[in-house]
């Protein structure tokens, strides 16, 4: 069985936010408006965090694009009282919007703050939305799913054409849209895949690895050319 993962090369990331916008369009993520944004309620499944370099803070910023890290030992799923968030056998952490009771325990438990809440009914059905992704009602938590619907679609396509499903057919919107090709996606359990190869790089690290959450999004630090 596949184990989906992602490698993000910070050396290549320019902080352009194309991944953020692609994700919002793909997943019908609502734009909450200026007032809500000021109150700290932006929903952004993929978020580019900025960090200044500790040694020389003036002249260098570090961009860290942060999707849901799809932990293999996710702190969020353990605390959900209704199994509304769960880790599926292929390692993707899902969220059942129709079951979530909105207690926000998973948000409190996630050390990466990768879960978002619908404080209001932010949007109704309208043209231009992606029909493959359901809209979330008010009062539920939502999150990045590695564009899981794309996986389902690719599998269905392969089935319809009566052939084997090729893992390369499945790419999330953020990886697809990155102009610097900083985001590489694939099957971590397949040693031949590019993502598995890059994950072995000496530059590879994981966010807050010491917490033992085993994230499947792996970062490559800035190389020697950087600061």
């Amino acid at each position, binding site marked *: 069985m596949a184990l989906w993962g992602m490698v993000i090369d910070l050396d290549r990331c320019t902080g352009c936010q194309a991944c953020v916008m692609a994700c919002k369009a793909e997943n019908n993520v609502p734009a909450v408006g200026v007032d809500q944004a000021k109150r700290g309620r932006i929903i952004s499944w993929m978020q580019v965090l900025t960090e200044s370099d500790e040694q020389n803070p003036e002249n260098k910023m570090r961009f860290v694009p942060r999707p849901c890290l799809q932990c293999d030992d996710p702190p969020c799923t353990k605390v959900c009282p209704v199994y509304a968030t769960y880790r599926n056998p292929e390692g993707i952490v899902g969220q059942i919007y129709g079951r979530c009771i909105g207690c926000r325990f998973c948000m409190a438990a996630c050390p990466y703050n990768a879960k978002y809440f619908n*404080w209001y009914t932010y949007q109704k059905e309208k043209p231009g939305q992606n029909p493959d992704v359901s809209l979330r009602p008010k009062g539920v938590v939502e999150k990045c799913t590695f564009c899981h619907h794309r996986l389902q679609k690719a599998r269905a396509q392969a089935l319809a054409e009566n052939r084997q499903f090729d893992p390369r057919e499945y790419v999330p919107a953020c990886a697809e849209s990155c102009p610097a090709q900083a985001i590489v996606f694939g099957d971590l359990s397949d040693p031949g895949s590019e993502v598995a190869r890059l994950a072995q790089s000496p530059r590879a690290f994981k966010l807050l690895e010491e917490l033992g959450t085993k994230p499947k999004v792996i970062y490559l630090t800035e190389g020697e050319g950087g600061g």
Partner: protein
Amino acid sequence: MVETGDVHEEILFRPIEQTGRGFYWTVAVLSVFILWGVVAYVTQYYWGLGVTGLNEPVSWGFYVTNFVFFIGISHAGTLISAILRLSKAEWRRPITRMAEVITVMVIFIGAGQILIDLGQPDRMLNVLRWGRYQSPLLWDATSISAYMSASLTYLYLPMIPDIAILRDRPGGKRKLLYSVLALGWTGTEQQHRVLNRAIAVMGVLVIPIAVSVHSVVSFVFSMTLQPMWHSTIFGPYFVVGAIFSGIAGLIVAMIVFRKAYGLEYYLKPIHFRYLGQLLLIMSLFWFYFTFSEYLTGYYGAEPEEMKVFWSKFDGTFAVFFWGMVLCNLVIPLACLARLAQHTVVKVLAASISVIVGMWLERFIIVVPSLSSPRLPFPPTTYWPTWVECGETAGSFALFALFYVLFTKFFPIISIWEIREGREVGIKEVEERVLSYLPGEVEGQS
């Protein structure tokens, strides 16, 4: 036929049989606050939790604070009453009923806070349908419902003889209600034996349940990885805090009803002195736990922990933190150190201070940890809106209203237990003391 109250106990029937203007005023004032709470909740239900001040990353605020606080207050009652009953403390007799009522009323309000906090309250039964036992929230649901039923039983059992007295009073009201609830009590020796046995069994049973309730409430926080939540001391720390705030709540309720219903004859300064001393001890216990908790965090000096630590000691939350220390330690120590004079006033001042302080303590546990995310997010602050304030005011008022209504239906001081104290207690205590002393006891073989 149970004998119907002697002259001494007449004052205990007065609130049930007569209703003065004070009652209507109290209900009116409380209703205003409850209405505020209702309007706030309807608004929130209609629009969503966006009408509160909650945000990302502070996704828990007043409601969760209130939840922990109210569940804490509910500890006083049943736990204290059970401990005093089991230890045969004779001074308990006019206190136990008041304590047990607090527990039952507040636990409903406390559990309600979690429902108010839900984004999709109409899906709350998913907890039964899809319940995941790995989640500490489900431990809460289990423990709290066990505590609800146990303390309801524990309140009801010692009420049966009193309900029978009400049923048999000539010219009394609500005969049907009382005769159903009295379960055919006639006061035979057999019935008394069964009742006392049942009360003793429940007394033993509720203590571990009560301890479990606040432990699992703390586990909601300590089972996560968040800085200053992930602590092994949280279970006992929360239990101590709960008993601490619970005693304070009990004292305030006692003083209010003593004044309102003229119960000075029953609730004497000696009762407040004993409870005041208990409060003082709990204050020191609380300080010991708080000190251990923060010293351990400080010495470990893990960077994420220190961010939260300094936000409490010398940052955004410093006012709340030092206010908590003032209210939970400094004021109670000053008020309770010497209780020989002005006992009631001093104990009241200390109790109100502790109630405020323990609310701040719950707030200072919930919000600062969430306010300091580990990853570099832009800073946000949490500030409640009128909705959360309304819910909070409404919850307090609803508790007070429940309590006042209870006193209109049932005697707030256990009549039969006072009577038992007069008739049996004195002799029992004398015999007990004699049995402690060395040598042969007169009249016993």
